[in-house]
């Protein structure tokens, strides 16, 4: 839309203000994490890495980071395998009934997680899954499925269905078609879905607050306790590390998309 019609100076500066409102609060955490003081503040005399040292030297924080990481890996595997197959099935059959199934798969984004967490608290008590790695991984995996279904469905929309028909008519079995024709073409969509499912689990707090207590103490849970109990600059250091990690994952996604668009 270049050139034809430009926004007025007012519209342009207003947009800048909104962008600053969006980005600045996240950026402000960086100088605060480098403070030389023992309380939340901007650095007074010098920059200091002591709060990073506190976090990275603490077995509690490291333990939570490891736990969150492995839960995210397990739940991503679950979400990606179930979500990808489901999206392919729905795409190939493509009837009213599969539209309903796709809508069902989107429920976890639509229904507030507090409602799910309340139900799960009771449900998992009966299955003896409370406060266990498996329980949290399943809960995060199931709620991660929508992200995979969305990204894979988008990738499939650009896939020529005649390729699949050709493969089948030349005698390829369903599994062969899946393995050699469909999956390689939609890999970037699957990768995007995996990244988003991973971030979803990595950041998830509400479900964890209900179904985990002592054995499973994920990173968001520890941050939550830190914010509610003692606001010290170590929290800012954790926040910066989290932001950097998320940025890294997003850059990875961007790189993958670029490669797909180039192909």
């Amino acid at each position: 839309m270049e050139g034809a019609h430009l926004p007025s100076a007012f519209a342009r500066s207003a947009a800048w203000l909104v962008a600053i409102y969006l980005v600045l609060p996240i950026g402000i955490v960086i100088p605060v994490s480098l403070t030389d003081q023992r309380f939340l503040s901007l650095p007074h005399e010098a920059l200091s890495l002591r709060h990073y040292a506190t976090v990275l030297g603490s077995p509690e924080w490291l333990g939570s980071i490891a736990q969150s990481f492995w839960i995210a890996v397990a739940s991503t595997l679950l979400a990606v395998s179930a979500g990808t197959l489901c999206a392919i099935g729905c795409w190939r059959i493509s009837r009213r009934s599969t539209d309903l199934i796709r809508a069902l798969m989107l429920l976890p984004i639509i229904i507030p997680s507090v409602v799910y967490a309340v139900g799960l608290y009771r449900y998992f008590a009966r299955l003896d899954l409370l406060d266990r790695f498996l329980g949290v991984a399943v809960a995060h995996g199931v709620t991660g499925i929508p992200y995979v279904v969305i990204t894979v469905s988008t990738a499939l929309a650009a896939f020529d269905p005649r390729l699949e028909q050709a493969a089948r008519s030349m005698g390829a079995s369903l599994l062969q078609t899946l393995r050699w024709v469909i999956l390689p073409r939609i890999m970037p969509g699957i990768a995007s879905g995996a990244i988003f499912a991973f971030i979803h689990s990595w950041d998830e707090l509400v479900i964890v607050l209900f179904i985990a207590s002592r054995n499973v103490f994920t990173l968001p849970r520890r941050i939550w306790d830190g914010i509610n109990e003692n606001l010290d600059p170590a929290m800012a250091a954790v926040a910066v590390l989290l932001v950097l990690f998320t940025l890294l994952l997003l850059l990875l996604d961007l790189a993958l998309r670029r490669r797909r668009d180039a192909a």
Partner: protein
Amino acid sequence: MARPGQRQTGWWLLILPAFLLMTAFYVAPILQVLAISFTEPQPGLQNYERLFTSESVQRVIVTTLRICLITTALSLLLGYVLSYRIALAGERARRWWILAVLVPLWISVLVRAFAWVTLLRRQGLVNQALLETGVIAEPLQLVWNEFGIVVGMVHYMVPYAVLPMLASMREVDPRLLAAARGLGASRFTVFRRVFLPLSAPGLIAAGLLVFIFSLGFYITPAILGGGKTLMVAEWIALQILDLIRWGLGAMMAAVLVVAILAMLALFSRAVDLRRVFGSGG
């Protein structure tokens, strides 16, 4: 005709794992919430009666609706300003603007709430700056109240407002704008008579999305509200985790779900829901 039928069975099998997982570990717990709301502490409708008789229940609902409406209005306004700028930007600039929207979208909600606490609390950076420059004599109460909640929630929701609006704005044919200008319309008239009506579907979709997401919001209001201003989600958690009043908490959870699904059903005629949730197809 038997062959295509057989072939379809294979594809249905692909859907099966996700379907079973979703039924057993998502739908079943949600249905259990519905069941609890009718059966505890005694079977009957007494939990739902509280909707009409209990003042505290009504207060929570009114507070939630008020905060959500304010949040939605502000997010739409800020989001519209941003989308308008992005839609009319050149190819290179657009990429940066979109990045400024997408990065906050994926940053942990906890990190963002923490950042706002750092900025807004009594000894926070905003108050410090205002005190040092002499604008105020006493620190302002910027957080642990409704103001703090709205600031944090709008911050969270603006990216969600931008995405559907941007999608619909980019469908607006730029030649229409150029033509209107060429025919002598002022910049403001072009915006009001051409651009705004054409981008309205995105505006409605964004409003629906933001409002629905705001209704069940837990973490941001809990941190920035400081336990004083309760919204529905935090109230539910309080009933169940602290007061062990399962029936009441489940009732409110059920009301929340029914309200959201009803709103989606109502708007599904007016809005293309695929636009709201971005599923391909």
